[in-house]
């Protein structure tokens, strides 16, 4: 290799490093927000920490909660949806390169590909459990716009829910080497009176050999899919 080529490679690697903040790593939420978003200080707006449901929607949530042992889609090995996937008591891993960020969740190995090159969302003719994610960098923050949701996921184990019209805007900011601040606004005029925001800090798994394990549901003899017993279920008992 010539010296010129080596120099150019060094410059390219510096450019690559400067192109976007580095969110790579294995991250995990602490606490019990996964059980009930309204149960602790996860909701920062509105200030009362409650989801601003429309009145009929609150009744649906209450009914979900009563029925949660049978009705929680997470139990049936459905992909967890967004933002529930971020809150679960299982790690997830962020990979990134020049034009996309990929998040792989240990929970049922769900993944999301977040394009950061400006390409638009799909039209509304298709829906996804994990939504359709398009991201952009704003200074140190990755801002992800998520649309095209299927309605069949919950937001937590307490039956908090959304419709297919859900629109989520996530903000990921690495505030310290081992801390990722996650702030997410949810909007769904069919279900909520107004947008509302959750915020929590995620901790990095800094142990050098930590890795995601394979969390694959298996079908039992009755034909029902079940989670392997070694993983926390992420539901509300």
């Amino acid at each position, binding site marked *: *290799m010539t010296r010129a080529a080596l120099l150019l490679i060094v410059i390219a*690697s510096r450019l690559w490093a400067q192109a976007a903040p580095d969110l790579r790593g294995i991250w995990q939420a602490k606490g019990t927000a996964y059980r009930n978003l309204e149960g602790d200080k996860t909701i920062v707006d509105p200030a009362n920490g409650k989801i601003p449901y429309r009145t009929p929607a609150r009744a649906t949530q209450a009914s979900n909660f009563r029925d949660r042992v049978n009705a929680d889609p997470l139990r049936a090995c459905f992909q967890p949806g967004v933002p529930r996937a971020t809150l679960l008591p299982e790690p997830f891993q962020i990979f990134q390169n020049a034009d996309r960020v*990929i998040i792989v969740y240990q929970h049922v190995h769900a993944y999301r590909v977040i394009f950061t090159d400006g390409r638009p969302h799909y039209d509304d003719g298709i829906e996804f459990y994990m939504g359709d994610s398009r991201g952009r960098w704003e200074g140190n923050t990755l801002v992800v716009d998520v649309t095209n949701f299927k309605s069949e996921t919950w937001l937590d184990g307490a039956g908090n829910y959304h419709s297919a019209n859900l629109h989520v805007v996530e903000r990921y900011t690495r505030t310290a080497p081992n801390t990722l601040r996650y702030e997410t606004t949810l909007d769904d005029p069919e279900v909520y009176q107004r947008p509302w925001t959750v915020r929590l800090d995620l901790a990095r798994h800094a142990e050098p050999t930590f*890795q995601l394990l394979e969390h694959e549901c298996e079908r039992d003899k009755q034909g029902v899919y079940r989670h392997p017993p070694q993983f926390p279920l992420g539901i509300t008992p």
Partner: protein
Amino acid sequence: MRRLLLFLCVITVPAAAQPAAGGAKAVPFAPSRLADGHPDFGGIWMAATLSAAFNVEEHEAKYGTPAGPSVIVDPPGGKLPYLPGMRAIAEDNDAHRERDPVGQCHMHGVPRVLFPPFPLEILQDGTYVVILTETEHGVRIIPTDGRPFLPSYSSWNGDSRGHWDGDTLVVEVRGLNGKGWLDQAGNFVGAGATVVERFRLTGKDTLAYEATVTNPKVFSQPVTMRVPLRRRPADVELLEYGCIEGERDAQHLPPVGGSSK
């Protein structure tokens, strides 16, 4: 922030190479490289033919899938070197394709996951190589930082460790649970199998994939398969594929009895 891309290619021409002129030896392919100097496998790929997905051995048209050649390059002869009694298990699987674990929404396993009849995505970010498949939202995470394998692991997609041999990515796979099939015809690698894979870019849009499977309980010798991959057009993206959520066929299938191995 606007993304500034400047990827440089450096061809290292072997001292013995002839200049390309009038039918002489062609210049070896030089892949685009990431900042760490390694070739960039990133993108959406698919097997150049679907033949291996149906049956890795040479096969006739069957059950609506077409005939195809063997992808086995070793041993010569193109047949899986099953130990006595093992081929009968594969044939029983073939007669009971409703037992295919992929039909139960399980991940494909290795090496089958590298030749699914759906697109797959490869991404490298310096420490990891990630392979995503549409079906079953399947994932393989391959660290290339030299860490040890997990002790006593059992999984559908295995525990993988990668390293570079020049421009070839070499991946060792352990911890396969042996429940997966090797293809739709019921061939299998069995519990305790280990795999060594080699990935090499042979052109801008072609990737040579080779897998050597070793399992002294199933095969009389290691068996090597080659399935070239082709890059999909730039506008192809993976689509989410939730399988368990929408699975509705099992009620119409014969009951899944017996083991698939």
